[in-house]
Structures are given as C-alpha cells and as structure tokens.
C-alpha cells in the first residue's frame, strides 16, 4: 500500500498506526531457546575509555593499582559522558591504546586489568531499595554514577533521558523489547528470565520521570517473552497503567522513532528527541541494568551478549563482563580459526564488520556474529546500475529516496543530499537489503555524512581562525596606535620648555611669520 494512502487510513482510524516501509529479513534467532550462561572471568580485561556516545573519560587509576569489581576507574569529562568501572577485582597492568569495535579498526586509550580470580566487589555504593520515596534527581545521579548507557547498541548516556522537565512532561514510558535485528536474542532471554527485575526497573523509570502509563513492546516472534512480561505484570498491583503490546514482526520496528510512531501515532520531529513529544523509550537491557544499579548498587560491569552466526558451532547468549576479549568468547563457543569468516559486532543489519576478533566486549556489544563469507553475500561488491524499481523508497522507514541520495553522495553533491534529508537517515539498511542491483546504499550515505561532517568541521575551523586572525590584526593596530599616542605624550612631557613658554614661543613665531608676510607684501607694493 502506498505510504500516503496508509497514512491517510491511519489518520482516519481505519488502520492501526504503523511506521512506513520496513523489510522482513530471515530472523535466524538461533539462540532463542538457549538460556543465558554466565561466562567465566577472563584473565585480562580491556576497558576502552569511551564506551558511550559523548566525551571520552580520563583514567583515575595508575599502572599497578589494585581495583575491585565496580570500582570507578575512569572519570567522565563533560556532561555527555558516563564513567567506566572495573569489571572484576585485580591489578591495572597497563594503560595504552587498544582496538575497539569500530569500522575504522582504530583504537582508544584503554585500561588493562589483570584479574586476581577473587572477583571481590566494591561495596561503597549502597542499594536504594526504598526508591519510591527517593528523590528522582538522586536516582538520576545513581544512573550516571553507575555508568549506564543505552544497551540496545546506541549507548546514549541513560541518565540524560531520565529527567523531569516541566516543559516536556513525559506521559508514556516505552519499554523496547522489539529486538528486530536478526540473530540477536539477548533482550528476548532477559525478558524470559528476569521479567520481575525488568518490571521493577520500569517502575523506577516511571517514578523518575513522573509518568503514569507505560507500554511494553514485543514482536510476535517472541510470544513467550510477551507472556512472561504479562505474567509478571499481573503479579504486580502498582503498575495498572502499563500494558504489553505485541506487534507484528517487521524490521526496523525497534528503532526508537519508528516504535514510538507505531505505538502512539505520534511522530518525533526531525532533530528532536522523544521527550519533546512526551515519550521516553528504554531498552530492556538498560532497564535491567538500572534495576541492578538502584536496587543492588551494582555499576554496569556486565551485559548479555548474543554470540551467534552461521559459522559458529555453539551459538549462545552469554552474560559477559565488559572488557572480555572477544576472541576468547568465540573460542568458548567452539570457533578458533577465523579464515573465511566475517566478524560482525552488533546485528547483521546495522552492525559493524570487523577485520579480526581482537577487541573487547563493550557497553554497545549487543551481539557478536561469526558469519561465513558466502552467507555475507559478497555480492555487494558487484554493484549494478540502478534500475529505478523504487523498492528502496518503499522500504525506507522514514520516507527518503535512497537511490537519489546514493547518486548524490557518489557524485559528491553532499549539500544537495543534505537538502534531501540525508541526515535523517537512520542507517537501518532496509534499502540496501531490498536493492536488486546490490547497491550498497547505506555505505554511500555513511560516506556522504562523513564528508559533509568533515566539510562543516573545516568550515567552522576556518571561521574560527578568521576571527582569531582578525582580532589579532585589530589588536596589533590598536597597540601601534597606543604606542604612537604614548610616544607623543612622552615627547610633550619631556619637552625642554613648559607649556606656557611653549605657547608663548608659538605665538611669537606666529606673529613673526605674519610680520614677515607683511614685509614681503610691503616689498611687493614697493615694486
């Protein structure tokens, strides 16, 4: 159905709200029935100094220091940042750069912790079991202090969203249990195994933002998770405003803005946040982590990771300490030889392809996939011409025109692409997925966004430099003028005669001059 007709029908109430576009990839949820296993503590943990969106942290510990599990080892610098904590007890062995799961293959300064095997915890953060009578700002500080960042993959510092703003009161809290990426099942398993804790976490969030109603959104390929949440909900008497919504499976339903539209019929405007339309959406894993932080006083030192992929003998859901080397996780699941295998960090649709598994588990590690290269469809290297079939426009959940944008990015018409709302693209990959010509559309968008960001950075740097240079020129001018003024002042004060005498001499020369002129006139007349 064309998007316009669908939207009209939705507005008229003939159709349930539902985001436009989307695709139905094979879900490959291999690990849906595999219970979360706790992973052994690795001998050495690597903690990158930035595991969130925002400013990088600075280390608080030095080489040789002994640390406890949950001890803060890096301080956040700036507002948009959360601290990093030690995942286990042990000794800091070195602080140096280490590769992180990033498409560039580049690294960040990281703290290496050699575990001592005791796994002793830092007990300095006390649980707040009476959260219902606790001031929301105090709970918010707890969320920041415990290093919470969105565990759905975007790792946006959680505390920033958990705020009561009088201008934008939050009406609805959405618990995002969609998990629409193929292969990933960690939120699914959390909902099955920790429903009570997640609900308690949700209650804390609703208390913090002052919301009365809530929605738990689950896709229908996880009916048992929805049942589990419903069961836990029925057991509670204090959460009447919360309902469980089961939605038909479609990718990218788990994307925040798409989910909010589907559930509430309200669109988050471009460049705005969900809070601006009175909605807060939180991921399942993050909600569980908030429960741990508030009720147990546990900072974020572990997360569930789906280790899966078609090249893996034993796919599983693991509870992993942050900083665990990924190579050891794959080895645990029976994969040692990485030839002919592509490692993906995150889900297959939006995750990063990485060259090797030499990086640690970080806060954004939702999944770790080992894919055989054939399955990865090396076909994307054979890009065919666009045949204008329009499938990409139909699949785009934000109604962009991907083929046009890709053309503009390919020919470096970045400003034009920006006019066609390149920056609203959420890089979900639905367009690349449906393209019959195998055009790597999202890759073009990322290229375009990067180049445009670079140009804008250069322009603003040039503008700043110009201002500095102009101020400098102005200052030099002023100093010169001041110097000249001072010099004439000095000359005046140090002149041999007093002002009066000088004035007299001036007057004398004047009269003398006039006399001279008169004389010459006289001589003229004589002639």
């Amino acid at each position, binding site marked *: 159905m064309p998007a316009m007709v669908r939207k009209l029908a939705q507005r008229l109430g003939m159709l349930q709200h539902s985001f436009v576009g989307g695709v139905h990839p094979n879900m490959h949820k291999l690990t849906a029935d595999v219970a979360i296993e706790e992973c052994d503590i690795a001998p050495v943990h690597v903690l990158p100094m930035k595991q969130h969106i925002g400013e990088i942290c600075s280390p608080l510990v030095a080489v040789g220091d002994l640390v406890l599990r949950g001890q803060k080892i890096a301080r956040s610098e700036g507002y948009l940042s959360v601290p990093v904590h030690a995942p286990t007890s042990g000794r800091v062995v070195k602080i140096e750069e280490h590769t*992180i799961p*990033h*498409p*560039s293959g*580049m*690294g*960040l300064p990281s703290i290496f912790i050699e575990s001592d095997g005791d796994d002793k915890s830092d007990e300095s953060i006390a649980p707040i079991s009476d959260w219902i009578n606790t001031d929301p700002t105090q709970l918010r500080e707890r969320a920041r202090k415990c290093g919470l960042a969105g565990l759905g993959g975007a790792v946006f510092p959680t505390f920033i969203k958990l705020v009561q703003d009088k201008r934008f009161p939050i009406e609805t809290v959405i618990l995002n249990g969609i998990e629409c990426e193929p292969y990933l099942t960690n939120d699914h398993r959390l909902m099955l195994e920790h429903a009570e804790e997640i609900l308690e976490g949700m209650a804390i969030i609703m208390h913090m933002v002052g919301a009365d109603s809530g929605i738990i959104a689950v896709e229908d390929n996880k009916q048992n998770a929805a049942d589990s949440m419903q069961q836990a909900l029925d057991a509670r008497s204090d959460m009447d405003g919360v309902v469980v919504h089961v939605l038909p499976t479609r990718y990218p339903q788990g994307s925040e803005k798409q989910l909010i539209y589907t559930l509430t019929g309200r669109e988050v405007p471009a460049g705005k946040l969900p809070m601006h339309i009175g909605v807060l959406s939180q991921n399942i894993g993050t909600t569980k982590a908030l429960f741990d932080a508030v009720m147990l006083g546990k900072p974020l030192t572990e997360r569930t990771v789906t280790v899966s992929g078609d090249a893996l003998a034993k796919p599983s859901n693991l509870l992993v300490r942050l900083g665990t080397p990924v190579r050891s996780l794959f080895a645990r699941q029976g994969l040692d030889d990485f030839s002919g295998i592509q490692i993906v960090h995150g889900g297959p649709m939006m995750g990063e392809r990485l060259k090797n598994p030499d990086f640690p588990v970080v806060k954004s590690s939702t999944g770790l996939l080992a894919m055989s290269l054939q399955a990865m469809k090396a076909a*994307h*290297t*054979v*890009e*065919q*011409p666009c045949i204008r079939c329009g499938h990409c426009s139909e699949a785009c959940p934000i109604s962009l025109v991907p083929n046009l944008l890709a053309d503009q990015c*390919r*020919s*470096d018409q970045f400003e034009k692409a920006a006019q066609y709302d390149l920056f609203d693209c959420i890089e979900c990959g639905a367009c690349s997925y449906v393209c019959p010509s195998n*055009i*790597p559309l999202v*890759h*073009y968008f*990322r*290229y375009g*966004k*990067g*180049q445009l*960001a*670079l*140009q804008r*950075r*250069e322009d603003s*740097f*040039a*503008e*700043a*430099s*110009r201002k*500095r*240079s102009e*101020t*400098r020129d102005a200052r030099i001018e002023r100093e010169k003028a001041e110097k000249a003024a001072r010099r004439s002042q000095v000359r005046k004060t140090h002149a041999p005669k007093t002002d009066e005498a000088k004035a007299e001499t001036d007057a004398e020369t004047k009269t003398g001059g006039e006399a001279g002129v008169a004389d010459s006139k006289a001589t003229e007349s004589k002639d």
Partner: protein
Amino acid sequence: MISLLYALASLGVFALVAGIVLAIAQKLFHIEGDPMVEKLDALLPQTQCGQCGYPGCKPYATAVASGEADVNHCVPGGERTMLQIADLMGVEPKDLEAEPAAPMLAFVREDECIGCTLCIKACPVDAIVGAPKQYHTVIADHCTGCNLCVEPCPVDCIDMLMKPELIEHWSWPLPDTKRAQLGHERREQHAGHG
C-alpha cells in the same frame, strides 16, 4: 533638423536624470569594502599560511577579486576551494600548483624553548601562548599548521607534527565497488575540465 535637436535634448535630459538617480543610489546603498573579497575570503581555509604568495587569506582574496591573482594558488584549500573560487569568479578551473599536504600541527619542545616570544608574534591566529622567558606552547585546537612559527624560532624547538586522526573524525570511505570508483573518476574529470 529641429526634430534632431528635440531628440538630443530629451535624451540629454533623460541621461541627466538617470545620472542623478544613480549618483544618489550609489551614496545611499554604498557598501563598505568589496563584497566579492568578503565572499572569497569566506571560501578560503584561513590558515593565513602565505603559501599563495600573499601575506594572508584576506590579501589573497583581494588579489583574486581584482583579477591580479589566479584562482589556484591556495594550497591547503585544495581542489574543493579552487573549484569554489573559480565558480564564484566565473572563470575556468585550473590545475592546482601543489598537492595539499596532510594537515600539520606545530609543537613546541618546551625544555628547549628559551621564551623569546618570536613565534608568538609570528602566529597569525594567536594559537601560541607564553610570556617572555617562560615556556611557550601551541594550543593544538587552534593551530592551522601554517608553518610560520618555525622560521623565527632561534633555537629550532618547533616541530611540525602530523595532525592525529581522531576516531570521532574518522569517516567512511567511498564503497569499494567499481561503479563507485567510476562515478568518482568521472566527477574528477569533470572538475578538471570545467
């Protein structure tokens, strides 16, 4: 004959009126400075490096605006700047004289610095801090990498370092497909020959 005089007189009167109107308009809508210079200056990278042969970006912009200088002298601006200038001036793009070097950053080896303030005076963007007989240091975020501080230093304690590539500033390369490369090459050819 008389009709010719009429024609001349009426044209003369018209010319006079038009002249007066134009003169008033010029006084009324007078713009301080050359707007073209401002526009060109805004396109330049503002490194103030002098590699174009002029003592800064503004002087080069003035020279281009007056037609005295060519459009292809800005080295750090590279092809993008050259194309934008050529577009604004309405002239054919020209090949660049020199490839832009990788972005550099001045660095003062502080233990060798004698605090002479010569580099501070040389810096066109005030990116060096220090005082007489105190160590000087470069504010890395403001350094344009223009090289102008290296020459005046009497003890040669200023190094030009490669600007470190930040992971936040990393951007995706063009997709590694034949069509992507083809499109890119075609565009470069197009840019080269206007």
